[in-house]
């Protein structure tokens, strides 16, 4: 589904990604973790072309992301993405947030888009908030709407960029619950997150990044059981301590 081959990226002389290679198969859930500044968010943004990269190739469902001839908008319309800071559109009601891209990008008619949007809103448990605006919801609620907004486009895979790291602790679970459910339904997912409980529960593989490189790419049992690199061991020891 997603294939990342020897991808490198630099800003000027600063190397952000070095020779990253990994694959995500259909139905797989991959968790990407690592210390801040390790390039994990950059890597996931390269997958749908939000960040350009200078070397290597990324293909999503057979389409090359780095190819200048690729219609990136079309590709992105069926790759869902959820951001750290939700990024709902503040001037639109929740319903409009859920329907606008369906209408303007996929060309669905108003009723069809609305039905789809409300069904997904119900699924994330927020049906009662359809007429509200993003600023009137809590962080956890906004993030669930953001997930519903991405799902409304019928994505073939979902990218999560630290979806819970901007949330208050008591709201993290409501978002993770939605993500676990999605994973169990067989959605192909690539998640940048430090929620190791989530990784243990649903991940097929865990990727550990450090200084722009993929240091470990292993099954979750191997990763949590006995990480091969010293760097990953230190990282795990630090975040699992509390």
């Amino acid at each position, binding site marked *: 589904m997603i294939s990342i081959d020897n991808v490198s990226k630099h800003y000027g002389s600063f190397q952000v990604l070095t020779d990253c290679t990994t694959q995500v198969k259909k139905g797989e859930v991959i968790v990407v973790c690592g210390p801040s500044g390790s390039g994990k968010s950059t890597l996931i*943004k390269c997958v*749908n072309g*939000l960040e350009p990269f200078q070397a290597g190739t990324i293909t999503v469902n057979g389409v090359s992301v780095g190819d200048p001839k690729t219609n*990136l*908008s*079309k590709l*992105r*319309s*069926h*790759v*869902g*993405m959820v*951001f*750290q*800071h939700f*990024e*709902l*559109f*503040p*001037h639109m009601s929740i319903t409009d947030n859920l329907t*606008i*891209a369906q209408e*303007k*990008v*996929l060309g669905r008619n108003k009723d069809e888009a609305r039905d789809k949007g409300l069904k997904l809103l119900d699924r994330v448990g927020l049906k009662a908030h359809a007429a*509200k*605006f*993003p*600023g*009137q*919801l809590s962080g956890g609620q906004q993030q669930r709407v953001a997930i519903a*907004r*991405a799902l409304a*486009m019928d994505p073939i895979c979902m990218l999560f960029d630290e979806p819970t790291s901007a949330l208050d602790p008591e709201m993290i679970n409501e978002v993770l619950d939605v993500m676990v459910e999605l994973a169990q339904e067989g959605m192909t997912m690539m998640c940048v997150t430090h929620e190791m409980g989530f990784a243990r529960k649903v991940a097929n593989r865990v990727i550990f990044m450090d200084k722009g490189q993929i240091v470990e790419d292993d099954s979750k049992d191997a990763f949590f059981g006995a990480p091969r690199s010293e760097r990953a061991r230190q990282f795990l020891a630090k975040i699992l301590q509390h």
Partner: protein
Amino acid sequence: MSYQWNWGIFLSPAASGDGTYLSWMLSGLQTTILLSLSAWVIALALGSLMGVLRTVPGKWLSGLAATYVEVFRNIPLLVQLFIWYFVLPEVLPFGLGERFKQDLDPVTQQFVSAMVCLGFFTSARVCEQVRSGINALPRGQKNAGLALGFTLPQTYRYVLLPMAFRLVVPPLTSEFLNIFKNSAVCSTIGLLELAAQGRQLVDYTAQPYESFIAVTALYLLINVVVMTLMRHVENKTRVPGYLGGK
């Protein structure tokens, strides 16, 4: 010094033979309003376009827009007006300048030059407001739009501009007020707008106090109306749960 106040002067017949001095004032007021509104339309359209161009990726377009702003912002309004009115018709190619001078009556020539001048001058300032509005939005908003499959123009249309314009309603209100006040400069090329009518009235009646008090009051009146209107716009477009909204 003894000054003979005579507020009745506005109701006495004007020296031009048609109507009263009040009708001079009203015709000046009408010209000022028409001139400023039409210039505002140009300023808003052109300024928004340039403001967007200043924020798009790619050095060419943003460089072009930046140059545009520096040119129109750094030359005094009066000098720009003289260039538009006196210089440009002489240098326009394909006989356009000749046609401008021969086919249009003098009042229209003055009006068009003044309108374009005020419009371009103000557009450079609107451009900077719109640019600052777009840049004030979180960077993730653009990514969120693109990630949903919107093209870049669609992202501006549906995601960035609706919020950017809301953010800059207060500074745009100042520019809207400025354009009415700046329009007084256009009396220097002979356009009979409000300030010019006021001075003409002094020349004919020797009642400067009444005349300039009336002119001042009318400018104030215009700006009170504009301010009320813009405050209404601000309230109407306020986003619930965001920036002072409910």
